[in-house]
């Protein structure tokens, strides 16, 4: 059952990129493009979601993603309520569905959900009343669709199209919801090759079945690529059974100027942030001319405005 599309193929929830038709993704990118001028004006507001109430439900802490959702909602004139669930009802033992039922009773129109467990937004979408839309803002190691959409926006902005592109995703693929969503988006949009580059300890089983080619050697993996996406290495995985140390990871997989030169000369470097300088990426690269890390953040707001307005049936 596809929860996120209506019978007529319109997006009702945004839970995962997997299974989203190409046209739906393009619709989001186009809507985001139309919002870009708004984000640059003096008065950065449009009244599209006036009177709507959006709950930011973060069961897992986040500053950046939560903030960009909040800004996006406010620019659409919606009322935004931030609920840091870690310190509220759930901490008192309330079940996830009870929390959702209570907030639904407060006449919510949209839930933006981040949760540590894969599939939690699907569960919520299954139980909310039909007028409420659910946006997955990251669940476990499963999906982070708005991040992938803003990454696609960034790639299209700098590379114009997806066909013919060779994209490398480098780092902890195994635990990355961002990587999974990016892979689904890139394969749907027709990138000619998606490579994942990581040590075997950070690659999930049968990852090639997602439609990617697997490289353990970054020097081979970066050859002739158009786009390099570096993933954030979680602190708790920097040393232990997955990796001996962050230094060793940097020396084997860190994106340095030297390695960047293996890619195409006009390759762009992306990162979902926050970056660990000297762990995934050399400062010279992060701040260099190939880096599009800061534009990604700006596009992130437009993408979230686009998703919210499409879900609310208010896209232009």
């Amino acid at each position: 059952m596809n929860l996120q599309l209506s019978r007529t193929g319109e997006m009702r929830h945004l839970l995962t990129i997997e299974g989203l038709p190409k046209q739906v993704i393009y619709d989001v990118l186009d809507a985001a493009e139309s919002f870009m001028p708004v984000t640059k004006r003096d008065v950065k507001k449009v009244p599209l979601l006036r009177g709507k109430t959006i709950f930011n439900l973060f069961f897992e802490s986040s500053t950046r993603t939560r903030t960009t959702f909040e800004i996006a909602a406010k620019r659409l004139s919606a009322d935004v309520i931030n609920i840091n669930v870690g310190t509220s009802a759930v901490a008192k033992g309330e079940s996830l569905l009870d929390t959702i039922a209570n907030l639904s009773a407060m006449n919510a129109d949209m839930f933006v959900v981040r949760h540590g467990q894969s599939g939690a937004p699907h569960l919520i979408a299954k139980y909310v009343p039909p007028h409420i839309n659910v946006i997955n803002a990251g669940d476990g190691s499963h999906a982070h669709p708005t991040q992938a959409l803003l990454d696609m926006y960034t790639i299209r902005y700098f590379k114009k199209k997806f066909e013919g592109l060779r994209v490398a995703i480098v780092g902890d693929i195994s635990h990355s919801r961002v990587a999974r969503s990016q892979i689904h988006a890139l394969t749907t949009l027709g990138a000619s090759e998606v490579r994942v580059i990581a040590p075997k300890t950070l690659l999930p089983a049968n990852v090639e079945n997602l439609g990617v080619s697997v490289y353990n050697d970054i020097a081979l993996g970066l050859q002739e690529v158009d786009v390099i996406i570096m993933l954030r290495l979680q602190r708790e995985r920097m040393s232990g059974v997955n990796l001996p140390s962050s230094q060793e990871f940097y020396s084997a997989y860190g994106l340095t100027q030297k390695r960047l030169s293996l890619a195409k000369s006009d390759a762009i470097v992306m990162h979902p942030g926050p970056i660990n300088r000297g762990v995934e990426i050399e400062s010279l690269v992060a701040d260099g001319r190939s880096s599009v890390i800061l534009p990604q953040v700006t596009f992130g707001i437009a993408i979230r405005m686009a998703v919210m307005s499409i879900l609310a049936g208010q896209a232009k």
Partner: protein
Amino acid sequence: MKICIKGGRVIDPESDGDKVQDVFISDSIIVGIGQSPRGFMADKIINASRLAICPGLVDVSVRVGGHGSEFKTTLEQELRSALAGGVTKLGCPPDTTPVLDQPGLVTMLRERATALNSAKIFPIGAMTQSLSGKLLAEMAALSDAGCVAFSQGDGVLPDAAVLKKAMEYAATFSFRIFLRPQERSLGNRGIAHEGSVSTRLGLPGVPVIAETLAVSNILMLAKETGAMVHLSKLSSYAAVELVRNAKQDGVDVTSDVSVHNLHLCDIDIGYFDTNFNLCPPLRASRDKDALREGLRDDTVNLICSDHYPVSQDQKNVPFAEAIPGASSVELLLPLTLQWAREEGQTLLKAVTQITSNPSHVLGISPSSISIGEVADLCIFDPEHPWIVSDKSLVSAGKNTPFINKELVGRVLCTIVEGRIAYDPDEICA
């Protein structure tokens, strides 16, 4: 009471029998087959034409309590659930609340079950105290209290040193040990088969090697200690292969598969359907095929339901937080029949997997439909289609991956010691 079951297809694995004949019961005993005993006057006549009659089913893995204290069911209700599945004898794993590691608890469980005059319970005692895997449980005393075998349930296996001692101790008394093979350091945090589906869904995986490493260790220890080992709920093709080879080498080992692993695979999880959160996890399609092949060539000896009722609240949570388990004893027969149909096996072979084979593994005398035997019988319609629903399930647990699915083959009447114990359509009226 005297009962005559007329015109049914009598399937009796112990005598290799499969033919249409009448069965005559007097009080708790079968007194005639085919020919009416002299002077037999039936109080009840059951018209069983187009129906099949087999010994009461035997299920080696039925939990008669729910998970944890918040789930409310009763022994009475779960035993009725067993009867609704045609099951008259059931093995109870020890990992229930409380753990079956004390002779007193086992005695109490058996006495309560006996008082209910329902399906019969054969407790499987804890192999280690509190199932902690550290100290041996009092197996001999537990055996005296009625335990028919020993196990860790779905809990973690002890380390090799404790496992070896447990096997040696069990072998001393010729007790059988049931082990669900999973190497604890590899399987502990996983909740889905490690493969394409777990990767797609971002769920922590249980690799096949978690099972095969454990199976290899167990088989080597069994060979070394001479213990009788039964491997519970095999889930992978590689494990089936190891067991097949061990049997050829003469290791005294038996194994089973649950109805879930026999019919489902990981792709059926869909988008995080917690009814499919089961233990062991559903594996890939090739694993399911290998388990089916294993049953066919007797590498896998029997089918169990792995009945474990859980509440709706324990399933209405994110996938990884759901309690693994399903109410399934009522589906044992139709799902076994489905296996036989799909694999071109006879009805007799199907019934063998859920009657005499599990009896032998539990070390209890198998029921047989022959004169002088106790009348524990299951009467079923092998062609009857029905839909599994929360209303149709007698168990307090309403969760099963087969909910709202149509199954073929329905139990119509269960007879325990000559007493009509289940007869919802009143075919015995």
